[in-house]
């Protein structure tokens, strides 16, 4: 069996899921036996290559994320929504209850520690935030989800290991379903 190609991606989230991924500790070496991590915030890599499995953390919050997730979808076989933000927007989506303009102004114009120059960033090189944060499944087809904020390392390892061994994991059966 040839080694699988694995990518981990981070969109609008807190990186906690990636940290939880690292919490599989030494078991990452077991993963390494079955897969090359070809693209991840924690390894080098230039372009997003063709991969077998992509673990995507975070919600889609901007035009850039939107393009990214479409790109990823095209270049991966199995797309896994990784963590509550990717699955159901979670804390990242909490700004959805408000008008984006208000959210911006609260931080950039009215914050207590701001000096007299209050302006909302709008440089053309900045990515444009979408009005509403959406989970991955609102934009692309998702093949598997791992909820949790963050998912337990054990859960992550279980899912990865099953996929790497060409089995479909079942969180309910494995009693690993968890949100929050």
């Amino acid at each position, binding site marked *: 069996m040839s080694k699988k190609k694995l990518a981990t991606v981070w969109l609008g989230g807190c*990186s906690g899921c990636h940290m939880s991924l690292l919490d599989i500790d030494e078991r990452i*070496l077991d993963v390494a036996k079955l897969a090359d991590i070809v693209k991840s915030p924690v390894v080098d890599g230039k372009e997003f290559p063709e991969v077998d499995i992509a673990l995507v953390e975070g919600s889609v919050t901007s035009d850039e994320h939107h393009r990214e997730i479409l790109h990823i979808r095209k270049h991966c076989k199995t797309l896994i929504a990784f963590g509550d933000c990717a699955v159901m927007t979670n804390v990242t989506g909490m700004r959805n209850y408000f008008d984006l303009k208000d*959210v911006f102004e609260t931080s950039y114009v009215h914050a207590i*520690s701001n000096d007299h120059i209050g302006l909302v960033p709008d440089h053309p090189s900045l*990515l444009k935030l979408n009005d509403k944060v959406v989970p991955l499944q609102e934009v692309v087809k998702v093949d598997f989800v791992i909820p949790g904020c963050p998912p337990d390392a054990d859960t992550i390892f279980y899912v990865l290991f099953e996929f790497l061994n060409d089995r479909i994991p079942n969180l309910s059966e494995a009693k690993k379903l968890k949100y929050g």
Partner: protein
Amino acid sequence: MDKRKIFISPVTRIEGHANITIELDDNGNVSDALFHVNEFRGFEKFCEGRMYTEMPTITPRICGICPTSHTLASVKACEMIQGLRPTYTANLLRRLMHIGQNLSSHALSFFHLSSPDFLMGYDSDPAKRNILGMAEKFPDIAVRGIRLRKFGQELSERITGKKIHIMGIVPGGMAYPLTEENRKALLKWIPEALETVHLGINIIKKFHEENAEMVNTFATSPTLYLGTVGPGGEHELYDGKLRFMDGDGIILQDQLDPTRYLEFIAERSVNWSYLKYPYFKPYGFDRGFYRVGPLARLNVCSRMKTPQAQEEFEKFKHMSGGKPVHGTFYYHYTRLIEALSDVEDAERILKDPEVTSLNIQHHGRWNYTEGIGSSEAPRGTLFHHYKTDETGKLLKVNLLIATGQNNPSMNRSVLEVARQYVKGDDIKEGMLNRVESTIRCYDPCLSCSTHALGQMPMVIEVKDKKGNLVKRVERN
């Protein structure tokens, strides 16, 4: 005027939340560099209207790497509102958890992300230049690094049952006591952890020796520094007072209560970044940039709290004759000195007989409508500031994040590198690596700002005013 712009961005920007624009003047000289941070989630807005006691649960979600620091700053702000102090034991447990987080973050930064560069070299195969590549080539070091991080995470887990986004820290103390069994299990880690940290120190020292020129010329402009110190000026992460120091080592402010942060820190919104630019208020925006984090903490503090760390600290101080060290590259070294201190301190606390006491929480109601808390995240000082109505509903939330405070300096470092390496259309080789290394030195907290972990895939495009591509340079 033919003002041209250089736009640096990760190729596909698949992972990048940051990019850079370099502006050139008429003569093709670099006039400015804009460091764009693309992360914004609006915590300050959506926390408004909620109960302040929820903040210790919401704010760790700002960042998955330093959640405990956020919880601590948050819970301290809550305690100020309640007019409450945690119990002695609770303070011990909090310290332990905070140490755990600092340790795992530093371990991640050094062993997972930076050591491949140091041990395999910048020119090695990028595909192997990561922790997995390390595991193949230097399995012992890789596993040790992983295990050091694991120890840090386990400190949180054994105290609260969770490694990330812990939930046991409550106003007035802790929700769960430490069991004797867990205390013993944690103590077992100490010897191994000490060895690993020393191993790391040796690696970085060796690299320093072999690359002295690069290390010592690397983004070395002096800035101000901010860090938390104990009552005797000693190094402190969890609970202390602030000290501002200038580039010459003169203490500008000392034993400053964090609740007075507004007198000394202001932030400016800039249109090119979602990260605001904080500065030392008395010096104003132009002169007031300061740095935080391990380098800053070691620059400002008078001594370390533990013997082995103190020994290493003295060597560090010796390098610049007691003055602040400005070289951005020294962030790595100072990080490891802190890790050393963390392991030693953890041992001290775990041996304190009170650590397993059941006296873990003071109860109280709230007395005030304003609370400010601060703590030292791995990447620097952070502040939480809440204002509530008389029922406890949050009216205003202000969060000053560690990486935010390094932001102006990061931008300046980028500008320095750009000035050194760019002249008109002529972009010197190494520009990309330099920019990337600069940013990585600060180890910007992933979620607070960018994801500049690993090698940032980059291109530089020089465009003329009309947006036509003049030149394009890719890494390698």
